[in-house]
C-alpha cells in the first residue's frame, strides 16, 4: 500500500472520482496545467483534459456561481478556492444559492458540489491565506463541512463528499498537507460523512477537535498521560452536521471536555459544541467545558501566528483546568 501525504491522498481521490464518474469536473484558478498552487490537482489536466479540468479566470464568486449552475444541470463540479481567505468572495453564492437551492425548489434542483479549499494556518503564509471559516458555514443551513486530519481520511472523506447529494465544503488543513505520510489503499473507499473518529480512548477528559489541531491534541494527550491523565480524543472529521452521539457518549463518560479549534472563539464551532454538550449531557458535567481557540483578532502575520494558534501546551493547560476545577 502506498505511503501518501494528505495532498497526495486528495489528488488520488480526485483522480479516482473523475475516472469513476465522468460527470465530475474540477475548476478553479491554476488547477489545470499548473496542477494547483499546492499541486492538489496535479496530473488531472493531462489525464482528463481541459473540458473536465478547467483553469478559470480569477473570480471566486463566478467559480462557485458557475459550479452551482453546473451542479443543477447535472454534472458534479469540484470548484477549488485557492485559499480560505478568498472565500468571502463566494459567500453570497454559498449562502443565498448553493445552501438553499434544494430547499427553495422543493428538490427540483439540487447542488451536489464539493468546494475544496486549503484551510487554516501554520505555514507562514501571507495575509488572508490562513483563515479558518467553518463557523460561517456551520451557521448557514444546508451545508456540510468536512475537514480531514490525515491522508487516509482525506481520501475517503473526499470520495464521500463527491458522492454526497448536498453541497459540501471540503477544507484541507494545509499545515499538514505534507507533514505526515500514511498507508492509503489504492482502491476507492469511503469514510461516511457525519461520523467522528475516536482517536484515543480515555476516561478522565474528552478532547474534541478536527483537522490539524488533532495532531496538537495528540501531543497534548500523550503528555497528559505521562501525568496520569486518561484523555479521550475525538476527531470530528465532519464538522457539520456532526456526530453528536460520539460526543455525548464520550462526555457522559468523562464528565469533562476541552474543545480545540484554530478559528476565533466568539460565536464559533466551539460555542456550538459546548452548547450541545450543555444541552445533551448537562448533568454529567463535572467542570465547565474549556475552549482552546484562536483569539478574536484577525489572523496575525506569520511572525506571531504561533501566539495565536493553539498548541500542545495550551491544550494541556486546558486539560489541567478542567481536571483541577
Amino acid at each position: 500500500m502506498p505511503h501518501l501525504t494528505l495532498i497526495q491522498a486528495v489528488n488520488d481521490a480526485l483522480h479516482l472520482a473523475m475516472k469513476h464518474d465522468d460527470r465530475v469536473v474540477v475548476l478553479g484558478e491554476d488547477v489545470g496545467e499548473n496542477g494547483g498552487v499546492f499541486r492538489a490537482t496535479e496530473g488531472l489536466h493531462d489525464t482528463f483534459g481541459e473540458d473536465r479540468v478547467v483553469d478559470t479566470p480569477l473570480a471566486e464568486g463566478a467559480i462557485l456561481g458557475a459550479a452551482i449552475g453546473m451542479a443543477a444541470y447535472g454534472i458534479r463540479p469540484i470548484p477549488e478556492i485557492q485559499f480560505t481567505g478568498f472565500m468571502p468572495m463566494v459567500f453570497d453564492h454559498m449562502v443565498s444559492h448553493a445552501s438553499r437551492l434544494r430547499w427553495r425548489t422543493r428538490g427540483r434542483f439540487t447542488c451536489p458540489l464539493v468546494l475544496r479549499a486549503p484551510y487554516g494556518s501554520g505555514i507562514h503564509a501571507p495575509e488572508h491565506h490562513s483563515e479558518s471559516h467553518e463557523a460561517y458555514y456551520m451557521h448557514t443551513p444546508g451545508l456540510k463541512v468536512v475537514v480531514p486530519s490525515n491522508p487516509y481520511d482525506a481520501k475517503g472523506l473526499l470520495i464521500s463528499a463527491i458522492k454526497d447529494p448536498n453541497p459540501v465544503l471540503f477544507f484541507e488543513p494545509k499545515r499538514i498537507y505534507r507533514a505526515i505520510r500514511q498507508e492509503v489503499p489504492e482502491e476507492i473507499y469511503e469514510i461516511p460523512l457525519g461520523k467522528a473518529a475516536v482517536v484515543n480512548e480515555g476516561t478522565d477528559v474528552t478532547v474534541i477537535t478536527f483537522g490539524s489541531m488533532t495532531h496538537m491534541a495528540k501531543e497534548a494527550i500523550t503528555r497528559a498521560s505521562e501525568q496520569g491523565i486518561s484523555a479521550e480524543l475525538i476527531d470530528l472529521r465532519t464538522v457539520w452536521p456532526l456526530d453528536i452521539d460520539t460526543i455525548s457518549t464520550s462526555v457522559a463518560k468523562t464528565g469533562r471536555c476541552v474543545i480545540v479549534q484554530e478559528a476565533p472563539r466568539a460565536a464559533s464551532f466551539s460555542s456550538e459544541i459546548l452548547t450541545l454538550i450543555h444541552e445533551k449531557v448537562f448533568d454529567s458535567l463535572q467542570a465547565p467545558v474549556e475552549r482552546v481557540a484562536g483569539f478574536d483578532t484577525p489572523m496575525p502575520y506569520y511572525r506571531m501566528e504561533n501566539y495565536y494558534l493553539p498548541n500542545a501546551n495550551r491544550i494541556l493547560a486546558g486539560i489541567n483546568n478542567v481536571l483541577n476545577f
Partner: protein
Amino acid sequence: MATKSKANKPVTVKDVFKNKFTPYTLLNPDGTLNGPAPDLSPEQLQAMHRVMVEARVFDERAVNLQRQGRLGTFAPLSGQEAAQVGSAFALRKTDWLFPSYREHAACALHGQPWLDILKYWGGNEDGSRVPDDVNIFPVAIPIATQIIHAVGAAWAAKIQGKDDATLVFFGDGGTSEGDFHEGLNFAGVFKTATVFLCQNNFYAISLPRESQTSSESIAQKAISYGIEGIQVDGNDVLAMYQMTKEAFDRGRAGEGPTLIEAQTYRYGPHTTADDPTRYRDSAEVDQWKERDPIERLKNYMISQSIWDDGKEEALWEDVRAQMAKVVEDYEALPERPVEEIFKYTFEEMPWHLEEQLAELKDFIAEYGNPNEGHH
C-alpha cells in the same frame, strides 16, 4: 529611415464608439413592419400574443390580490411583456431559463404554470418547484447572481456535448453588480451558449438609468468581454424574438454568448411596496404606454389579416376566465404541514433538524398553531 511614419495617434474608446448603438426595431408602434418579418407562423404569433395578454391580466390580478392582503409583495411586469415573450419564444424546450424576479411572462411561456408563479408570490415554496420537464431556475432575489448560474449551466451543457442554451434575465441595475462582470467574462472565455438579457426599464427602483452607469448604453459593455452585444427595442416582440434566436444560433454553433439590451419600461412600481410617483412623472409613463407591446403586435396581426377585434375581445375574455380560475385554485390551496420547513434542507434530514421538527410539533400540540390567522 526614409518612410515617414504616420502620426502616432492613440485610438480611444470614443473612436471605437463613433457609431452609437440604436435600438433594433422590426415592428413600428403602429404595427407596420420595419424590416423582414421573422419566420413565425400565424399560430406562433397568436401564441406570443396570448402569453402577453395572460401576463398583463395576471399582473392586474396579482396586484389586486396584494392590495387586498391575499398575496405577498409582488413585482409587476406590465409594459415588459414583449421583451420577455419575444426572447423566451426563441428558447427550445430543453433550454434553461434563469429569471430575476419580474419574468412571469417568460417563465409562463417556458412552461411554469401560472398557479405556481402565484404560489411563489403567495409565500408558498412549492411555486419554485417547476415541473420535471421544465428548466427554469427559481427567482433570483439577490441582484445579478443568476447571471453566473446561467453561465455554469450552459458551460455544463457544453462539457456534456449537448447544445442546450441558457437565457438569463436581469435589469439595468444588475449591470452594476460584480456578478455581471464575472458572469460575462466567464462566458466570453468559455464561449458558453448564454444569452444575457438585460431588460433596461430605465429605473432600478428609483435610480434612473443614467445614474446607474455612465456608459452610453448597456449593450456596449459587451465589447470589454469580447462578446456580441446588441440594443433592441424591448417593446417590439418580433425584434426581440429575432435577435434572441440569432444569439442562440450563434451560441449553439460555439460562437459564444450575446448581451442583449432590451429597452423597455415598467408601467407599475418596482414592487407593490414601492411608490414610483416619488421618482418619475406620469407623463413619462404615458409616453411609454403609447408604445405598448401588446397593442403593437395586435396591430401587426390585424394588418396581416390573421387577427381582428372580435378575436381580441374574445381572447381577453378567455384569459380573464383563465386567471380567475388560477386565483380560485390559489385560494383553495390547503395549508401545508410544518415538515415543509425542514424538508429539502439536505437530501436526508440530519439529527439536529429531526430534533427541531419534533420540538416544533410538540410546541404546536401544547400551545396551538402559531400560524393560524396569519396568512
